[in-house]
């Protein structure tokens, strides 16, 4: 059996990749994907713990997260399309109407 720590390290790596992508990338789609990556990194740690301790609550939680992520994807993509239509770009640095 693969030890729990492996899962957790992978989960951490995925999450950090998500954070870095979120901070570094300029393309709004990529940022969105980075958020999904962070969520799934967390999901992985949930299921790993659930399998380790034979507790179903972790897996139930993952379903909830996936539902929220799906809803978020629906809303987020709609926003991205709206932004692209008005500004004709997906570069977040150019989306700066609120900047001082």
């Amino acid at each position, binding site marked *: 059996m693969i030890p729990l720590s492996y899962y957790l390290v992978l989960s951490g790596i995925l999450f950090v990749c998500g*954070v870095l992508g*979120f*901070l570094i990338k*300029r393309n709004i789609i990529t*940022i969105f994907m980075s958020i999904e990556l962070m969520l799934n990194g967390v999901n992985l740690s949930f299921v790993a713990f659930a399998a380790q301790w034979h507790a179903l609550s972790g897996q139930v939680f993952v379903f909830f997260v996936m539902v929220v992520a799906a809803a978020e994807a629906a809303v987020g993509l709609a926003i991205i399309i709206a932004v692209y239509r008005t500004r004709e770009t997906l570069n*977040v*640095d150019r*989306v*700066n*109407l*609120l*900047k*001082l």
Partner: protein
Amino acid sequence: MTPNPYLWLVPILPLAGAAINGFLGRRSSKKSISAVALVFCGAAFAMALFLAAGFSSTQAPYYFDLAHWIRSGSFQVDFSFYLDQLSLVMLLVVTGVGFLIHIYSVGYMWDDDGYYRFMSYLNLFMFFMLTLVLAKNYLVMFIGWEGVGLASYLLIGFWFTKDSAAAAGKKAFIVNRIGDFGFLIALFLIINHFHSLDFPTVFQAVAPLTSETAGAGFLTAIGLLLMVGAAGKSAQIPLYVWLPDAMEGPTPVSALIHAATMVTAGVYMVARSHVIFERAPMALTVVAIIGTLTALFAATIGIAQTDIKKVLAYSTVSQLGYMFMACGVGAFSAGIFHLMTHAFFKGLLFLAAGSVIHGVGGEQDMRKMGGLRQYMPVTFVTMGIATLAIAGIPPFAGFWSKDEILWQAFGTSWVYWLIGVITAFITSFYMFRLMYMTFGGEYRGSASDPGHSAHGHAAHGHDAHGHGHGDPHESPWVMLGPLVILAVLSVFGGFVGHGNRFEHFLAPVFQQGANVIAQETSDAGKSTEYLLMVISISVAGLGWLLAWLLYSRRPQLPARIAASLGGLYQAVVHKYYVDEIYAAVFVKPLIEGSTTILWHGVDQDVIDATVNNSATAAREVSDAARQMQSGNLRSYAGWVAAGGAVVIAYMVWMGVTH
């Protein structure tokens, strides 16, 4: 104690006049303004006469409680009025002389733009002065005390567009504050010890106390503090400096407030508090010494003044010194007697001086007068009578009262008497000097000089007089009438005191609990009294003779004498540099201390700096915090990540320590 419901009407009547003229006077004709002012002031005088007519020594003192004022536990102060022999004398003097001066003012101030304002202020002054005189407790007296100070301020600075007048008003007000400070503390001490400010209550509580001969107790403290207040109001050393400057006001004001009535308030207050003073011999001695020194000091300054009103101002200070000398030796009734005769002849002197100033077109410098006798005969005769009265020539009023004071002073100590006699000599000298310089010789003014407004004094408002000033001329009868009446009073006013009648009249007031000082000093004998009388008369005659010699017979002599005296003469001309000393010792350090420490130090560097620096600090912190809100999506993301990291780090750390 008899209630008398008419008492409160006396002060209220002039207040009504002041209110009507003050609110409506701007749009009224001068005739109606005069009518209002004279009717209400005259009504107060009529009320005073009515009260005097119904006055009976067996029923006195009268009182009337108008309204409650302060109720705090067992301590209470009411708006209540009080009339005994002492306040009756004051009442008649204030309303009588006040009414005459109101009449005179109609003529004197007729051409002034602020006529309604002047009449309103005069009535206001009457209200406060009558409140002061008729008060039944120290606090109502204090209302009047402060109120006359206010009226005095307003009237000194009546021509407020002139810098010197505005400054003189402020000086009078500020110097009086020092005195009022002492008065207030005395009141607090009285409250502390007697739980009342009511005159009868306080004096009944004081009466059984023994005299503080061995040491200085609280009665001495109260007495000294009351004297501080009296010295401020009545222009005694060291607070006399405001009175000569107060001559910036219109001359009727100088006559009414700064000669006849307000400045005597201090004497009245000391006489009113005689029960306290009699049990504090040390305070009484201080009163006598201050009075005696002031009498001599001010009289010597009067010698060298050339402004006709300044001479009279220093003369007033000097005569007030006599009154305090009388109070200080326990002869309160003699002091009040002199107060009354002084109100007559000094009021007359000022009004006559006003008539002279009016006649020569606003000139106040006696060196530019002279020879006015032929131009202004009525003014000359009346002022001459007043001069004889103040110099102490019998049978004029001043002789009786001054002689009474000197006689009583001799009974206490020959030093007081000697200084008093020297002062009497100087008084006689400077008054006859004034007469000779003003009325004797040839007219030294430039009769047809159209530019006499350039003299500076003409800015006094007199240049506003419609008539051109050619030769000096006599004043109208509305001004001369009061002069004549006061002249009659100055001649016959002294006979009130003949055979100690005045003293016997006031005896119920001053013998109330007077177990300390024997009033009659009969041991010295009648022959001594007559000898002293002869000395004071001959001294007055000597002063007259000297003035005649120097200013009529050999008019070139005074300049030579002045030159030979050199520094001493200069010191007298400059009023012993007292104003300069006060400026250097008190005013300048105060201004500099206020500027460097209070203004630049405390106000700018502490208070303003606290406010300004906290505002600056808030702005700088906000400036730094604003950097987070860059509008850049990725920097927001960075802050979210950083915030998340902080929260996680905190939770991990807390988890570790628990």
